């Protein structure tokens, strides 16, 4: 252990290998089909589990008869909520998680789990599900966010009283919370405005759309010990949650994260793992539980659908003098913080004297909303950035210049409160302004749009080990799941710190029994926080290496320096001593004190904030409303790009998700409150032929809170595309769409209306 706190100061050093693009350590496993994901584990004697789900959007569960299913040959366990008693001790948030995993007397959305079976094979489990008889009393339902706020709407959670309003309401409501952010004097601001634009927007619900469905293999014995193999963004958090919900001891539940086949926030929440553990406990056999794609759509967590009002006032000289927003976000059948997050991000790109955002978090009969990449920010940005273009047009200003004039900068008070340090919104806008893309000619029916986006970065609890092998190779053990190449980036950091080649480092993600707690890979924190812990662990190793070199040389450790990846003896007295490499020292480690290792346990606070600006060209078929993205450019601040390939990959992937959201993706509910498109056929994520190459420009405005200046890069670029495309469609087709997705029927309708 380091006796003193590690040096967290930003050291703008000259890097040797940070910023290079070596092959990722898990590459060969993944191109040969060897890599093991959630559904790829098998245990001796494993059972196959299936979940019975509510066909109703809202219903009272009068009874569940499982007797016939239990008697079916080959069925080893059937569970309902009775097998998952409430052990949460009054913690409503935990109870919500439990109730979402398995309905407790009421079904709150189409797809809500009601019972589960484990059987010797899938066929038997399927038969058993059909033998479970559930009696429902169907209740009125509501799936639209605006409808759910109306006085006469069916109440989804009778215990909910709106927080954030005065006086505190006595009656139940679907509005879980009202939250407000902002500063200045809004009314005075609007009074001073020369132009005011007011618009209302709607965005439909989208899903993260990871290609790997949720899957786990659970095993619990009568001794209270258990193991869980699961696809997750945070196995340590899953362990704590599952242990608490099942009454297990944290240390006795070992959770191993499989390779993760995409998460984007959707795998930060438990959806079914406690059910698998309960089945395994009851059957005393390993249980494999895998969601079908349909279940993923119906019963994991998409992001909110929203309804947003925006009002912006500006003076003739192009300054925004007042900005206000009301945001209504649905969180599914349980209270969430999604509206609040939307409100915090609404005005974050701009330097505003008077701004306000008021958010309502609303319950509806839909699945529990989950985080989706920069959660809640894209919808708010769609509304704001569309309106910004309208204001610029009204002022007769270029939309980029207008944004540059109003952009937040170091010292700006953020709309969510604190004052910004060095930030990248201005530089991304300048880069957009000067980008060749902005000057490229456009053809008929083509239009160009741009938009900005903001997102926070997180730090959090992190723990990293480095162990030096006797041959001088280095094993780096981290606890943050690798969702997009972070093992390559972290290996680069370890190699940089230790002064050894990248190829000498192997990065592994440890299970929960092998390393201290790590928060999830969320909030763009993977490379930021594990990177920070890796730096400190490596510096811890260097301390040990210096000691061992001193022992080998039989000199005082103060006379040993670590320079360029080797121990150097200082002073004329030791000039006869040749430097020792890490490998030299490692080879002798058995006789100089045993294994060489370094550790770091930290709370990686000090995360920066992140900005991106995007440019987009579209072509709209005026006769069908079909929109094709023909060129796309992402400019984002990365702080410092550790492995530029994977930074670009994050930018491109986020932009593609935003494009899908903008144009075609949406949850479609029927009158009956049932999801009509729970599959990749009609939930239309972009396919390869839908997209152009997505050009990227990485800016590096160092984050002073990280030793290398790193900012999280994973999320921000999903924020601008909705508005960038909306603005481009507006310029191509002469119609502005205030409803996302801008699907062909909506665009054609707007074109016809404008005729």
């Amino acid at each position, binding site marked *: 252990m380091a006796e003193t706190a590690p040096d967290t100061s930003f050291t703008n050093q000259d890097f040797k290998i940070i910023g290079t693009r070596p092959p990722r350590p898990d590459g060969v496993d993944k191109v040969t089909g060897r890599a093991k994901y959630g559904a790829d584990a098998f245990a001796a004697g494993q059972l196959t589990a299936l979940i019975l789900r509510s066909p109703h959007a809202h219903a009272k569960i009068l009874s569940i008869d499982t007797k016939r299913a239990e008697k079916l040959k080959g069925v080893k366990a059937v569970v309902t909520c009775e097998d998952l008693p409430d052990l949460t001790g009054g*913690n409503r948030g935990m109870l919500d998680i439990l109730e979402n995993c398995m309905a407790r007397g009421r079904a709150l959305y189409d797809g809500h789990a009601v019972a589960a079976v484990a059987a010797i094979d899938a066929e038997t489990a399927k038969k058993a599900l059909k033998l479970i008889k559930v009696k429902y009393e169907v209740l009125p339902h509501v799936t639209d966010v605006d409808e759910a706020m109306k006085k006469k709407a069916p109440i989804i959670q009778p215990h909910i009283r709106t927080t954030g309003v005065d006086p505190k309401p006595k009656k139940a409501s679907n509005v879980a919370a009202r*939250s407000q952010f902002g500063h200045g004097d809004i009314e005075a601001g609007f009074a001073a405005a020369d132009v005011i634009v007011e618009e209302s927007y709607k965005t439909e619900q989208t899903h993260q759309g990871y290609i790997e469905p949720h899957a786990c293999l659970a095993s619990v014995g009568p001794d209270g010990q258990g193991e869980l193999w699961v696809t997750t963004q945070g196995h340590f958090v899953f362990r704590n949650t599952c242990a608490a919900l099942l009454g297990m001891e944290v240390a006795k539940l070992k959770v191993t994260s499989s390779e993760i086949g995409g998460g984007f926030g959707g795998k930060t929440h438990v959806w079914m793992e406690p059910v698998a553990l309960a089945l395994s406990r009851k059957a005393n056999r390993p249980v494999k539980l895998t969601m079908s794609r349909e279940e993923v759509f119906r019963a994991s967590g998409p992001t909110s659908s929203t309804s947003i009002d925006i009002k912006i006032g500006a003076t003739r000289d192009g300054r925004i003098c007042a900005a206000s927003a009301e945001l209504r976000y649905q969180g599914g059948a349980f209270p969430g913080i999604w509206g609040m997050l939307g409100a915090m991000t609404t005005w974050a790109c701009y330097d505003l004297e008077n701004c306000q955002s008021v958010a309502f978090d609303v319950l509806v009969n839909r699945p529990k909303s989950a985080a989706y990449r920069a959660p809640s920010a894209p919808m708010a940005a769609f509304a704001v950035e569309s309106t910004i273009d309208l204001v610029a047009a009204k002022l007769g200003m270029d939309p980029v210049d207008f944004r540059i004039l109003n952009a937040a900068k170091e010292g700006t008070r953020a709309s*969510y*409160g*604190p004052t910004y*340090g060095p930030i990248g919104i201005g530089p991304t806008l300048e880069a957009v302004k000067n980008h060749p893309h902005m000057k490229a000619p456009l053809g008929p029916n083509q239009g160009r749009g741009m938009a900005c986006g903001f997102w*926070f970065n997180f*730090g959090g609890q992190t723990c990293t080990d480095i162990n030096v092998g006797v041959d001088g190779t280095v094993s780096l053990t981290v606890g943050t799941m690798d969702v997009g190449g972070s093992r390559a980036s972290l290996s680069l950091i370890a190699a940089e710190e230790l002064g050894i080649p990248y190829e000498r480092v192997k990065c592994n993600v440890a299970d929960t029994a092998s390393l201290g707690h790590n928060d999830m890979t*969320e909030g763009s924190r993977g490379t930021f926080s594990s990177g920070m812990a890796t730096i400190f662990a490596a510096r811890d190793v260097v301390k040990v290496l210096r000691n061992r070199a001193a022992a080998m040389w039989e000199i005082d450790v103060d006379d040993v320096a670590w320079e360029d990846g080797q121990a150097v003896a200082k002073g004329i007295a030791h000039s006869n001593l040749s430097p020792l490499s890490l490998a030299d020292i490692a080879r002798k480690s058995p006789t100089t004190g045993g294994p060489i290792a370094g550790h770091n346990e930290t709370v990686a606070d000090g995360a920066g904030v992140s900005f991106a600006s995007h440019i987009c060209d579209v072509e709209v078929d005026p006769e069908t409303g079909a929109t094709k993205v023909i060129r796309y450019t992402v400019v984002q601040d990365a702080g410092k790009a550790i492995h530029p390939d994977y930074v670009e990959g994050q930018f491109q992937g986020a932009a593609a998700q935003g494009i899908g959201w903008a144009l075609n993706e949406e949850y479609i509910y029927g009158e009956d409150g049932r999801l009509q498109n729970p599959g990749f056929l009609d939930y239309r994520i972009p396919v390869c032929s839908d997209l152009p190459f997505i050009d990227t420009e990485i800016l590096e405005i160092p984050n002073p*809170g990280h030793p290398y200046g790193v900012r999280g890069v994973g999320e921000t670029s999903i924020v601008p595309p909705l508005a960038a495309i909306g603005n481009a469609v507006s310029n191509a087709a002469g119609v502005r769409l205030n409803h996302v997705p801008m699907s062909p029927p909506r665009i054609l309708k707007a074109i016809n209306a404008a005729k």
Partner: protein
Amino acid sequence: MLEVNVSGVLRDAVNGAASLQVEAATIRELLRKLLERYPRLNDHMETGIAVAIDGVIYRDTWSEPIPQDAEVFLLPRLEGG
């Protein structure tokens, strides 16, 4: 004496105050004193609370010292993707 700005939903727990005066040298001391004064903050502490000191957001580093002239914001805990 620190001036602590309170954001969004947290205001509900501090009787609607937009800012508070607190004598504290670290985040831990700040949160302890706020909790003594406003027990309803406990709900937020359970789910998580963040403190921004001069624009840098701290979620769990409760030992972080707070300069007396610092800009301090009490923020709700965020979730990311």
